[in-house]
């Protein structure tokens, strides 16, 4: 295990080093070496994680000399961390391979390949070490390292309009989150006082904290980690930063990094605090359901392909949080088996989301690469120009829409099944909450299907809506390889959940007193819920879905169906030609849902009609403009930003520019500090 760990760290560091010199990370070799570092590092990390999960023995490494304050660098990989380390590898290997081809577009000097290469490897390194951190200092350092490096990755295309602004939103939100996390950990380390903040001490000391303190810690940690995960209403950075980043980085951020928020909340709430009162779970469940529904509703209205995917990440992280919340809730109500199942469902969905969201972001990146636009209303017909990307994106779309036989369906099935026992809790509030969660989860999955019909249909099908789309080219080999790897993962997770689910049972076993559910799952072709509540066999169902479509042509042959096919013009009600302007667009596809959920969207409409000066019966031009308003930003963030600016303006007066004034400030602070130290009783 030590070898794997060293291989992981040194591969990432070497990958960063090769890009460091002037002109590093450029050319086929430079980009290849950067990707190689990331692939080897992620591979070693996954292997380390897998060996910890399979053996059940945690991996520990402590270097107290490295950071002599507060306990030094302490690393320990238990099965929970190991799961997330595997997840990082799962997302990072394809993303790095894809990135080698994708970043070729930056050779023209549009962005610094040097910065991209260094930051990509450092980002993966710090993110991997977050899962290994075993004391507060290591955790926070690595967490901040992950945030900073990802900030630099977001602003890779700093020349593009809006990128710096997106980066600013990201930096502000992530640091607000960090401040909350700092507060949470300060409270957590308050007992035992003055300890080095080792997680083992915190775990032991958490029981003696008062209930209120524990709840405050939980709330701070939930909001702090939630801002990284992108739950509503802390999601505002996500639809800005993810589209702005290079696509393989978007894949990593959406597919992998936001899961670190899930890791954080599981680590603090479940492992360190050992669970809490039922309202913790209810809060997580409620906000998770809200994130899922609002995320997909905003995704439906997006016309920017990557923005749609980013909002869909809000949705999926919401689904994961439904599972986490249900787990916390059931654990608190004394249903440990049901709780463990809910956590397993949440982890399964997290794994799935890494696979299909990575795939979809890469597909969107290939489209962006080929058409130089993210606006779906300028795309269309790409299935003919980019057949491989179109096929891969279709598989990703079916998976994320939660349709059998792919992995998205298995994840949602597990979640539905794990919510069912919740209704047996003899408390109407809990039962009502769980019922509403089921309804919202179902609505979310239906809307997701609609959203991805829109994303796929408008982007890839019908007639190209712009010259660029008509001239699009297929993605390069390395980009196709990156996507192809994730396609395999999506299919494998859809066909063989029975092989994965027991392992996830091992991951959650023992956390916060959860029982080992692994033996409860029957390890065979079918997926069986404990106590025989329900059983499906995704493997056999998928097999059926392979056989039955094969029977259809055979059946038609037997029936003697006419096999001739003639290609003709599209039927056009007698008009002469068909142009792309007659097609449905991304906006018009979403129009019915915009009307149905008008209360939420508050759409604005602007209609300008130019009449002929002589007669109002001759219309010369019509301009129609419509947009939706994001009331989160209007009601929550605008007042907050205004208040911050107001305070900042007041504080700016301190910055007078006079040297005497600054010396006076120094003196005053010095006196105050001395006074505080000498205060009697200290």
């Amino acid at each position, binding site marked *: 295990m030590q070898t794997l760990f060293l291989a992981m760290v040194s591969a990432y560091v070497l990958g960063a080093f090769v890009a460091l010199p002037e002109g590093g990370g450029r050319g086929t070799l430079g980009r290849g070496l950067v990707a190689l570092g990331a692939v080897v590092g992620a591979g070693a990390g996954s292997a380390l994680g897998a060996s910890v999960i399979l053996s059940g023995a945690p991996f520990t490494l402590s270097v107290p000399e490295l950071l002599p304050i507060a306990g030094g660098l302490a690393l320990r990989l238990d099965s929970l961390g190991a799961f997330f380390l595997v997840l990082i590898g799962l997302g990072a290997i394809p993303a790095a391979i894809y990135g080698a081809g994708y970043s070729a577009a930056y050779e023209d000097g549009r962005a610094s390949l040097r910065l991209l290469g260094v930051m990509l490897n450092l980002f993966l390194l710090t993110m991997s070490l977050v899962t290994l951190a075993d004391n507060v200092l290591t955790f926070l350092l690595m967490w901040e390292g992950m945030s900073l490096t990802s900030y630099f990755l977001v602003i890779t295309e700093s020349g593009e309009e809006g990128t710096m602004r997106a980066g600013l939103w990201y930096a502000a939100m992530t640091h607000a989150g960090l401040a909350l996390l700092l507060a949470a950990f300060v409270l957590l380390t308050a007992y035992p006082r003055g300890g080095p903040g080792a997680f083992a001490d915190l775990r032991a000391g958490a029981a003696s904290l008062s209930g209120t303190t524990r709840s405050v810690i939980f709330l701070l940690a939930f909001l702090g980690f939630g801002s990284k995960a992108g739950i509503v209403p802390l999601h505002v950075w996500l639809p800005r930063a993810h589209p702005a980043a290079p696509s393989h980085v978007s894949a990593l951020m959406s597919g992998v990094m936001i899961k670190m928020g899930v890791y954080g909340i599981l680590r603090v709430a479940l492992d360190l605090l050992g669970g809490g009162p039922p309202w913790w779970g209810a809060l997580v469940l409620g906000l998770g359901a809200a994130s899922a529904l609002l995320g997909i509703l905003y995704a439906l209205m997006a016309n920017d392909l990557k923005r749609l995917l980013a909002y869909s990440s809000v949705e999926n992280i919401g689904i994961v949080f439904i599972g986490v919340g249900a787990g916390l809730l059931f654990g608190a109500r004394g249903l440990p088996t049901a709780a463990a199942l809910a956590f397993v469902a949440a982890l399964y969905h997290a794994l799935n989301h890494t696979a299909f969201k990575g795939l979809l972001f890469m597909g969107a990146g290939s489209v962006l690469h080929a058409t130089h636009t993210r606006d779906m209303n300028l795309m269309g017909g790409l299935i003919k120009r980019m057949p491989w990307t179109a096929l891969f994106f279709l598989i990703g779309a079916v998976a994320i*829409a939660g349709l059998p036989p792919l992995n998205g369906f298995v994840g949602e099935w597990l979640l539905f099944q794990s919510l069912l026992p919740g209704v047996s809790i003899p408390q109407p509030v809990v039962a009502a909450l769980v019922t509403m969660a*089921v309804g919202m989860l179902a609505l979310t999955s239906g809307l997701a299907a609609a959203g991805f019909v829109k994303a796929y249909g408008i982007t890839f099908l019908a007639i190209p809506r712009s010259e660029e789309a008509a001239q699009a080219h297929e993605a390069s080999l390395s980009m196709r390889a990156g996507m192809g790897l994730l396609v395999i993962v999506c299919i494998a997770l859809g066909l063989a959940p029975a092989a994965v689910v027991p392992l996830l049972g091992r991951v959650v076993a023992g956390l916060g007193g959860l029982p080992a559910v692994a033996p409860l799952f029957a390890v065979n072709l079918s997926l069986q819920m404990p106590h025989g509540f*329900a059983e499906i066999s995704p493997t056999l169902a998928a097999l059926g879905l392979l056989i039955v479509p094969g029977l259809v042509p055979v059946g038609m042959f037997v029936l003697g169906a006419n096999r001739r096919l003639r290609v003709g013009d*599209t039927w056009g009600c007698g008009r002469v030609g068909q142009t792309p302007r007659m097609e*449905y667009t991304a906006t018009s596809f979403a129009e019915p849902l915009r009307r149905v959920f008008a209360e939420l969207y508050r759409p604005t409409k602007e209609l300008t009609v130019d009449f002929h000066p002589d007669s109002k019966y001759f219309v010369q031009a019509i301009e129609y403009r419509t947009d939706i308003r994001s009331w989160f930003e209007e009601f929550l963030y605008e007042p907050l930003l205004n208040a911050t600016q107001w305070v900042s303006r007041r504080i700016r007066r301190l910055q007078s520019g006079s040297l005497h004034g600054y010396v006076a400030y120094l003196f005053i602070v010095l006196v105050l500090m001395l006074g505080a130290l000498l205060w009697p009783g200290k």
Partner: protein
Amino acid sequence: MTHYILEIAQALLALLLAPLLVGFVRWVKARLQNRRGAPPWLPYFELAKLFGKEVVMSNNASWLFRFAPTIVFASALAVTFLVPLIAAPLPFDNVGDLLVVVYLLLLGTFFLALAGLDPGTAFGGMGASREMTVAAIAEPTIALAIFGLALGAGSTNLGRIVTATLANPGVAISPGHLLAFAALFIVTLAETGRLPVDNPSTHLELTMIHEAMILEYSGRYLALIEWAAWLKLTIFFSLLANLFVPWGLATVLTPATLAIAVVTLIIKLAVLGLVVAVVETRVAKLRLFRVPELLGLSFVLALLAVTSSFLLR
């Protein structure tokens, strides 16, 4: 071996009954409207005619347009192996539960909507957009109705729901079951494109949903899609009939029980067909933007179903 024969026989039965069911509904409707109406077996001839014609495909369409009918038909056909039509529990009961059934049907809708967008016509896009809207809004009702049934039976597997009701007949008239039935009935109308949500016999562009989506299809592809749509109606009717009123289903496999099961299935389908024909004659089509209100009502019914099964347990 008898198990596999039973499964295949059941799928063939569904394939055979589906056109007759649709023809029957059309015939009853015509009679109720003082028309003579086409004979109920006309759909068989429709299929034969369509299978005999060549396909005309739009020059804008891609391979997805040709692939979609197979997926649509196969997903509906796959469901007939899971839904108890004549026997319960089925040998394949453990392969898929009620959620698998619902999501398999959604898979067909997903591909049909994509195929609607593929030729690049405004009609196809209109149909796809509306179909997905209706499907999405119907989804929570289905989930909650399943949830309500599963609470009573202790499982989401269809066979176990049926056997639970057979073992405890009182459940069939419990408020939870009745409300879930009403909710699922409304959803059935929406999902199978019947009035008041969609008019199966219209070709008026402003009101089309399903028909708009498949406007570019012809020949054998159209035959597959039509047959799949009829199959979907049969499946939803059988779910309504056999999950809520399971009597008549063969629980032991003897020729006599199977014969009774086939006869009761036909009677149940005919009764539901009659009800739908009456509904379609009595109500006018809703404006598209009133449909969410109807589905909202079905959602409330499903919510009440879950609540009452929770309270009465």
